[in-house]
């Protein structure tokens, strides 16, 4: 299974496959092959809970092709708990900013044709 496939399988279980630098300890999403900080190629897998708080988001009403049937929906950026990592995804059921204040607790729940699916916790 490719790294991307492993990443998706983890997302489907609400988890995030990350690469932890064996030299300096910095966490990266698993698509990264060299450490952003120290340049090392040595990584070990670290599987995190896909849980955190909303760092920022938007509610999309004019959608790209294929997403018209989902509008309005939110595109969110989730700050994962206790890490330097953020991850983006699709969130349904959001119609006004009052539905999703920045800082709202949320979690990764699935992966489908809408990419990474995130829900309020």
């Amino acid at each position: 299974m490719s790294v991307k496939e492993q990443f998706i399988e983890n997302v489907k279980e609400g988890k995030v496959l990350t690469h932890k630098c064996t030299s300096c300890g910095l966490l990266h999403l698993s698509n990264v092959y060299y450490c952003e900080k120290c340049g090392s190629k040595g990584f070990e897998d670290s599987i995190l809970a896909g849980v955190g708080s909303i760092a920022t988001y938007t509610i999309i009403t004019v959608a790209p092709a294929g997403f018209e049937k989902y509008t309005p929906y939110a595109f969110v950026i989730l700050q994962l708990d206790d890490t330097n990592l953020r991850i983006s995804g699709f969130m349904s059921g959001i119609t006004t900013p009052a539905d999703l204040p920045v800082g709202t607790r949320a979690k990764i729940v699935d992966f489908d044709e809408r990419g990474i699916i995130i829900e309020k916790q």
Partner: protein
Amino acid sequence: MEKVCVLGAGSTKYGKLADSIGDITTQASVAAIDSAGIDPKDIKAAYISNVFGVADKQVHLGPVLMSNLGISDKPSLSIESACGSGSVAFREAFANVAAGFYDCLIVSGVEKVTHTGTDWTTTYFAYCSDFFYEGQAGASFPGLFASMARAYLTEFDATEEDFAKVAVKNHQNGLLNPKAHLQKSITIDDVMNSAVVASPLKLYDCCPFSDGASSVVLCSEKFAKAHGGDYVEVIGSGRGGSPAALQGREHMTTIPSTKIAAKAAYDMAGITARDIDFAEVHDCFTIAEVVDTEDLGFFAKGQGIQAIREDRTKLNSDISINPSGGLKSKGHPIGATGVGQVVEVFDQLTGKAGARTVKDAKIGLTHNFGATGASCAVHIFQSV
């Protein structure tokens, strides 16, 4: 390193154009050649910036342009760097003249997309994001900049009405630009009452999808002096990069590539942000102009919004930002935009900008990025 000069510049009108992508590229190129007062046979090579040629059934545009200019034996190269393609093509041309490989080049940027309709244009543009994390999850470009706007509203003392003022200002400037796509005066209420595209951004916070082409002739100082006529000198050139996806940025209210490119350009020119008389910046959305003016060093972080509120960036105020009308009003044919900014600077510094002239301007800056600023180039120009 050879000194590099812009000897001529031309653009089509920006907007919904009927002619083909090859035709409008040629029209802008002919305008630039005529402006430079050169013979096409003086041109040694062409740099073409374009993103979605496939949408108008024409990729490999270079040879089409060169054939139309009667110089089919001359080499050309197409460059894609999303909405920042134009400034990257300009940079590559600059580097080649500076290195002495060529003494005279043409840089032509073009986009032709409006015939595909809003849904498909939105979709094509989303391919410029880090698609696995962003486009695939339904993020449009308005949506990505709206995410930056939401972060800015959360972090700083800013309101949606403040963002609206950016659009009002740029539309005022665009009214004075006969080539502008949206020549229409608007009010803050017009912006606030326009349809929401991606909260908190509304339709009038967004630049339009535009067709258009822009072209400049770039040459060595020796070539410029030998040919006579007006020219401006390129005194600074810088490029930079940022994490491809917004999620990878340490701060979501700043664009790292802008800061890196600006520092390189200021260092090459031996000047600072305070020396800039006017700037054409990448205002694809109102939030972007606010962030740009901070990242370029014109205002401190979080103070760009205060500058807008106090009208400090209007035409002929503290620093004229986007005298052309910017992407917001002049329009955003994405492959052409970065070259079109140089056209505006050339016109400003050679006395051809008419009613929108920045008074007593000697030094102008262009700032153009790709996607959400994943790539960026900054150039600085000085009148001669």
